[in-house]
């Protein structure tokens, strides 16, 4: 057997390909697939802190429980509003900045790209704390600025009607670095001659953007759209670090609700059902995006 292997396989690249793939497969089985499947199993079980030793299958009861809970739908609404608030700006802002940057020479462009990306490198906690200070309703920078300009100071994340918008605003201010890199790289990939051809073809700069740049950026936009929809549907940090889901549940995102259900209420089965529902929602929205955007994309 050994001889056989030695003669035929040790120097065979297929053999080594399988070996390396096996390591990866074992890794993802252990740490990704197993917990995922376990989560789906939990979602059909009555399992909670108080009877952790005795879980049993209860069919779709957890799902019915979640879907008939008005608070779940409240969280769906909050997450959807957040997504609607965050995603368009998550495309418009990085695209605008990238388009502006494209006019500068390389060193300046690289400096700004690094500067915009920096917040992404900083730990999420530091970022959240910084934003929390900026929007602090009592001693924050924004309110200082507002009072300096003679505007009425705001409650920001402490107001029931303002909190969600404040979190959206924080996202607008802070989380575009990676998308700027993506868009800048995509813009660099568009051949300059296309713009020159369009210029000779008498296209106005407006039309050049909509007829050349925008369609050619579609794969990038689709990627950004899907990742940011997924990201904002799974938003958690702002609620966790800054608002704790409040005030008055104004920022209780789906993921935060799952977290509370799991860790604070100890209802593991219901939390698992919520996670599965969230996963289905994200998949559905992503597929929808693919359908709408993907049809015309040239890869």
């Amino acid at each position, binding site marked *: 057997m050994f001889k056989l292997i030695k003669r035929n396989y040790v120097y065979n690249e297929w053999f080594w390909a*399988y070996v390396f793939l096996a390591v990866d497969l*074992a890794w993802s089985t252990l740490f990704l697939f197993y917990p995922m499947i376990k989560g789906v199993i939990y979602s059909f079980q009555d399992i909670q*802190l108080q009877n*952790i030793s005795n879980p049993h299958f209860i069919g779709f009861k957890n799902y019915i429980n979640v879907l008939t809970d008005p608070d779940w739908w409240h969280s769906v609404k909050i997450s959807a509003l957040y997504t609607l608030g965050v995603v368009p700006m998550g495309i418009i802002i990085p695209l605008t900045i990238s388009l502006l940057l494209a006019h500068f020479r390389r060193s300046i462009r690289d400096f700004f790209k690094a500067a915009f990306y920096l917040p992404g490198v900083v730990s999420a906690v530091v970022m959240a704390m910084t934003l929390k200070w900026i929007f602090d*309703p009592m001693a924050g920078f924004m309110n200082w600025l507002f009072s300096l300009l003679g505007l009425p100071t705001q409650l920001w994340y402490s107001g029931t009607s303002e909190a969600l918008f404040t979190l959206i605003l924080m996202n607008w201010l802070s989380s575009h670095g990676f998308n700027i890199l993506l868009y800048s790289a995509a813009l660099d990939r568009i051949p300059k001659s296309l713009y020159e051809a369009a210029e000779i073809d008498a296209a106005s700069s407006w039309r050049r953007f909509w007829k050349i740049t925008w369609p050619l950026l579609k794969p990038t936009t689709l990627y950004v759209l899907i990742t940011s929809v997924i990201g904002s549907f799974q938003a958690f940090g702002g609620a966790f670090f800054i608002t704790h889901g*409040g005030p008055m549940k104004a920022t209780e995102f789906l993921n935060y609700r799952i977290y509370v259900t799991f860790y*604070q*209420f*100890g209802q593991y089965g219901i939390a698992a059902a919520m996670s599965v529902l969230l996963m289905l929602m994200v998949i559905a929205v992503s597929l929808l995006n693919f359908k709408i955007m993907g049809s015309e994309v040239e890869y």
Partner: protein
Amino acid sequence: MKRSLGIVVALLLALVIMSSALVFASTDTITALLPFRPNTPFGAYLGQVFNLFEQTHPGVKVKWISGGSWGDYIKKLGTMLGARQGPDVAYGNANYLFVPGRGAGLASADSLTIPDKYFTKDERLGMGAAVIGSLSIPGRGIVVWPWHLYIGGISTMIANEDMLREAGFDPNNIRKNGWTTKQFLELGSKVVKDLNGDGKPDRWLFYPVNSDHMRIGIFPIYLSKKRPLEEQWTLDYFFDTRTGKLKDPELLHQAFQYLYDLVHKYKYAPAAAVSKSMGDASDAFLRGELAFVANGPDYLSTVKEHNRLVLEGLRKGKVIHAGVIPMPYLDAPDHEAIRPGLAVYGFYNFKQNPYKGDEHTKHVMEFCDFITNITFQPILAAEGFMSPDRRLFATRYAMAANLYNTNDPSIRYWLNDMRNNALPSFSQYACVGFTKAFRDAKGKWFGDSFIPALEGMIAGKLSADEAFNRVKVAAEKLPYPRVNKDKLPAIIKSINQLVEEEKEESKMFK
């Protein structure tokens, strides 16, 4: 053929890698999850005790997992339990073990049984109420002796005593005689100030953050009402454990109005702080911006550390003289001064099965015996682990069962007093055993209706009446908490038996 052999080899390799990752070391290790850090004085002391145990028990190792903050610790414990990887020994009081979060509920009465056979009478007496509390978690039958006293944060708060004195209040007098909500408001009028002259106050009574708004704004009204002893001991502030209805809706309404007035009428607490965290409130307290923070007594050590840093010039700020102060009571005929309660904390064993004579469980029991050995208790006292404050506030609400053997006459006196007064409350445990359905619904009511309504009210979105109505309407929808009637007599019987034994025992001290 060649390729399929490659696949087989690769899959075998994957199996080997996976199984080796799942293999655990087979030496006997006792895991202890404790909220203390090894680099604190008490942590160092525990470390020495653990070392001693390892030396006297060759072949057994103690693995000490230290939790960070109390919240982290509880979360870690919940996660470990959730993963069915509970530690052998953990530290905490019974309530936390039931529900590690904002849904304060207790275990189902269905499972409330006492496995006498595992404990001697003395042990059960020593364990006191915590035994019953922890026993009500099914499958977790073993508990070891509680021995750490702690003032319940619900009835007290931490005060900046400098501010109190400045306003003409004597903290010691308040501790002795209590104080009224009227006095609290009077204090507010003197403490809340605009110091830098920008037209906005920068010193407040407290921040209405989660838990502080509950403790300072709601509980004083609720807790100060005179009630029969058994009702006081139900450990449920809002619900009648027999009917599942709101216990005292009028009082709760009054409490909402009180909190509303504090924030919006008198403006002694900033509405804008509603979304801040307890950590923010504690920081503001250290900056001298708050008169009160609803932290536990362990926060005093943080203040002490702050003062040390300030004195040594390592931190900017002022030295703060802080102390534990009872909540103010409602100035009404049927209300009385609130006496701080004392909670009992202990080391609990979480193994899923009761002791069946296996080696590991035996080791764990030995370990628990060892660390709670009576000979260590004076050391604990000498190490300053039990501060004089804590003894000062011990009342009839508290228990510290196994400490009664100590030779210190003063401790013996008040411990004895506690035992006499507190033990009858055992009977109430049967009453807090809600059905699981009710407990779940109640937890959700608290997290989804009560806290959001309070936050809405503080944020100015709801009036006190509206907030209260929301809470009330939601409470009315809770299912009827039907306790398993068949089991109840047996439970009550065994508890009463325990109480009787306890009474007999206490006669020895008279």
